[in-house]
């Protein structure tokens, strides 16, 4: 049976030899396309073109079905028609223009006009029975066999939805009859790095274009009054999309990056990761990871639980849940060494005989008078999908809250992005708060998301009002990804990274759900030396933007890395709880070029290791039969579980500094830290349960509740009490 395993079957699957005739057909079609592309490229048209740029933005590449799309598409269809029609009209050399308006469209509408030798295909009379379609012409030029019957069958149906979306043909036709040359002048294929045009949108545009062409001159020919309803289209989609590309750009639309997303469960996207496994000290004694002060995961989990369902496994990052809460780790007194580690050792509730090592650091808290000037640029997503109470309105209120925490001399600028990116407010001092608030509340949602454009503009503004010794930061508020513009995550990442070098940092605030792109926010914030937070309620906004505003605005240490070397004489196995997405290679620790997490003023970072001491029965991995037993004990280190090293750079520093400290077996838990240790352990247990509880033994939600309830401590804002209710909700939702 194993020989028939699916792997075997796949390996054995051998495609039959390609059919020579089919190959020839494909070859001809491709060569024709190739020549057309290059013919179109050689057309002399000025490169700068705002109209087409906008037009292209109207066709977002991802078929994500934002609720807003129908609204704006309907409204803007007319505009599209005008632009497409007009561009079609003027791309054609004057001599042949009259051909273009003939009811039965001839070759001239297609910009192969400059191509002296139409390739491969012979010119022939259009075979297709339907007139007025430029793409039909190209279709007709292809040998009939080019389109396999399967491909053709579905096509006319494919157009139906777009036909509705394209709006009223009659009014579009009216609009076109009076083309204004001043409007038309700039039409040309622009130079853009990335063109995002969905294939299905291309249909729509091809439709509008053809309608428009038909309508440009309502001559009495048989096809001149062909309405949208009567147009039937045959032909391969490749023909059409290439027709569109040829006219508007030489770049390929959509798909490649767009379709390679992380696995989509629901519409919210999270990067998948496996939880840290148990490691044997004798084989891998050193564990290295980067600090993480993000809390987005906790807020997202809370939101899901509040709606009565368990969160997606990949949305749960245990370290972000732990770090959501404030712990009583002693803070450093000096700005020069911005934190000192606190290490405690306690019994593990997840397995008998195991121990937990807590490593906590709390960043130095900047006194208010020392706080540097702030140059803040708010970059707000105002796309149609933000039109929900928990999105743009919440973002506006959150930003207003943030203004309260700033000094009068700090400046704020506002940039929005949707269909187009725009500067709403130039850098304005907080003194003029009314102006800022007015600008902020004047924003209304509408359009698709051209995030990358907005980011560039925001960085421009931030650089314009750059404060050399101050904080220069962009605060990006969005509900989703950037589906127009730079959609390539790596490209965006590189951009943010380069700007970071210039001293402009970026933080990410996520709103709403439905198409929340957690992975995108994480990427941007991590590369922009910023924080990624998820805002689901005004309370959360208060926590992130007001109570922790100094933390999210003032970095006190950057590239903070942790490394723990375990003592093989005392520790058999260890496991780092969480931080999966922050793992570093051992050699990265001393490499100052390797980026790591940043810590803001007053930020606390907590990491928990679960260890199995030597001699405990809880061991999961058997000893190697041949390895030599550890000798460290002989050197007098038997009183240590391991050795902690922390590397960090000061905010303006380029060389890292090192903090070292042994982890003593008898460290215990000081009474003042008992609540912190207990509560963080409860949160860690909860997070692991939500991720499936692979290593938590018999732990149940009830145990988490019991442990957390005993460690509520002061809890001035009620965050810990809220945690308790969440665990209850998880228990109901999951039935565990």
């Amino acid at each position, binding site marked *: *049976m194993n020989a*028939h*395993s*699916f*792997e075997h*079957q*796949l*390996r*054995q*699957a051998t*495609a*039959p030899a*390609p*059919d020579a005739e*089919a*190959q020839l057909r*494909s*070859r001809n*079609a*491709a*060569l024709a*396309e*190739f*020549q057309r*592309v*290059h013919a179109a*490229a050689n057309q002399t048209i000025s490169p700068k073109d705002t109209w087409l740029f906008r037009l292209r933005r109207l066709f977002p590449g991802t078929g994500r079905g934002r609720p807003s799309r129908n609204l704006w598409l309907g409204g803007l269809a007319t505009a599209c028609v005008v632009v497409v029609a007009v561009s079609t009209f003027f791309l054609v050399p004057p001599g042949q223009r009259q051909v273009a308006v003939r009811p039965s469209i001839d070759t001239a509408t297609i910009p192969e006009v400059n191509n002296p030798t139409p*390739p491969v295909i012979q010119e022939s009379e259009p075979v297709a029975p339907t007139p007025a379609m430029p793409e039909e012409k190209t279709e007709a030029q292809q040998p009939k066999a*080019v389109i*396999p019957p*399967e*491909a053709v*069958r*579905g*096509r006319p*149906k*494919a157009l139906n939805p777009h036909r509705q979306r394209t709006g009223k043909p009659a009014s579009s036709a009216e609009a076109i009859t009076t083309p204004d040359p001043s409007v038309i002048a700039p039409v040309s294929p622009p130079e853009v790095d990335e063109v995002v045009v969905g*294939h299905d949108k291309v249909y729509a545009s091809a439709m509008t274009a053809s309608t428009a062409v038909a309508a440009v001159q309502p001559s009495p020919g048989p096809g001149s009054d062909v309405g949208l309803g009567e147009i039937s289209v045959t032909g*391969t*989609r*490749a*023909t059409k999309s*290439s027709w569109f*590309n*040829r006219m508007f750009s*030489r*770049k*390929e639309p959509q*798909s*490649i*990056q767009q*379709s*390679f*997303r*992380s*696995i*989509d469960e629901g519409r919210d996207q999270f990067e*998948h*990761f*496996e939880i840290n496994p148990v490691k044997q000290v004798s084989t891998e004694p050193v564990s290295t990871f980067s600090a993480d002060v993000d809390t987005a995961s906790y807020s997202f989990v809370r939101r899901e639980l509040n709606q009565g369902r368990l969160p997606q496994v990949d949305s749960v990052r245990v370290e972000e849940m732990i770090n959501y809460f404030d712990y009583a780790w002693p803070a450093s007194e000096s700005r020069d060494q911005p934190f000192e580690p606190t290490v405690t050792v306690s019994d593990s509730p997840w397995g008998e005989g195991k121990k937990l090592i807590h490593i906590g650091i709390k960043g130095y808290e900047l006194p208010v008078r020392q706080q540097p000037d702030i140059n803040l640029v708010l970059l707000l997503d105002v796309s149609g999908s933000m039109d929900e109470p928990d999105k743009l309105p919440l973002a506006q209120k959150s930003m207003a809250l943030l203004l309260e925490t700033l000094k009068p001399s700090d400046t704020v600028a506002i940039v929005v992005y949707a269909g187009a990116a725009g500067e709403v407010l130039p850098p304005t001092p907080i003194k003029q708060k009314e102006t800022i608030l007015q600008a902020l509340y004047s924003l209304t949602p509408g359009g698709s998301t051209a995030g990358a454009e907005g980011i560039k503009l925001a960085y421009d503004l931030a650089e314009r009002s750059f404060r050399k010794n101050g904080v220069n930061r962009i605060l990006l508020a969005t509900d989703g990804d950037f589906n127009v513009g730079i959609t390539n995550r790596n490209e965006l990442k590189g951009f943010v990274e380069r700007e970071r070098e210039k001293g402009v940092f970026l933080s990410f605030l996520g709103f709403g759900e439905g198409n929340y792109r957690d992975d995108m926010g994480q990427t941007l914030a991590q590369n922009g030396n910023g924080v990624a937070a998820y805002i689901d309620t005004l309370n959360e906004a208060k926590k992130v933007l007001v109570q922790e505003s100094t933390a999210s605005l003032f970095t006190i240490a950057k590239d903070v890395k942790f490394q723990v070397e375990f003592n093989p004489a005392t520790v058999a196995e260890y496991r780092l709880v969480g931080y999966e997405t922050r793992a570093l290679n051992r050699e990265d620790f001393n490499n100052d070029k390797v980026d790591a997490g940043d810590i803001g003023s007053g930020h606390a970072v907590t990491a928990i290791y679960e260890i199995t001491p030597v001699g405990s029965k809880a061991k999961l991995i058997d000893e190697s039969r041949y390895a030599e037993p550890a000798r460290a004990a002989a050197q007098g280190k038997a009183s240590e579980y391991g050795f902690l090293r922390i590397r960090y750079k000061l905010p303006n520093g380029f060389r890292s500094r090192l903090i070292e400290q042994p982890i003593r077996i008898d460290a215990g838990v000081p009474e003042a830290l008992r609540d912190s240790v207990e509560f963080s352990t409860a949160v860690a247990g909860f997070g692991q349960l939500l991720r499936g509880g692979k290593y938590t033994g018999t732990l149940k939600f009830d145990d988490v509740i019991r442990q957390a309830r005993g460690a509520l401590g002061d809890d001035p804002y009620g965050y810990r009490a809220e945690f308790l209710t969440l665990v209850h909700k998880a228990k109901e939702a999951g039935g565990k």
Partner: protein
Amino acid sequence: MDDPTTGLIRRAQGGDVASFSELLDLHYAAIYRIAWKWCGHRTNAEDITQQSCIKLASSLAQYRFQAAFTSWLYQLVISCARDWQRTQQRHDHDALPADDPPGGGSERSEDYIYLVQLLDQLDDIGEGMKETALLVHAEGLSHAEAGQILGVSESTISWRIHAIRKHMNKAEALMGGGV
């Protein structure tokens, strides 16, 4: 990528028809092979292949020599295949003709039927699973290479491969352990 192909691509990007044609001939079989493994169906594979060729013509200019050309080509074909499949699902849901088994021999055609079932099954597991399995098992690429082509991390590929096997084992167990 070896130099002759690089030169060929550069010339083709510059608009040289002969170079493009040569490039196409060089890779046609590979494109067809991937397309066929995607759908296990000859005419459908030809359809995908043709669209891939056309797309190659229109988007070759974007190839920037950052990844191996073959990797880039994989991306292109997979994206065409996905587009193709989307239209199929939308319009021909009921009528996917199980056409000509290749080869002819009965054992051969049994294999072929199994492959088509397998592909359907992979489709059902989740997005990205089929292409992952094809690249890794059928094309013999490493997890890292497959990750690069599919735009996900190597560990995601490893995880998917693991998930597929788990799923398949379960499915097999449900069917009484036999195929």
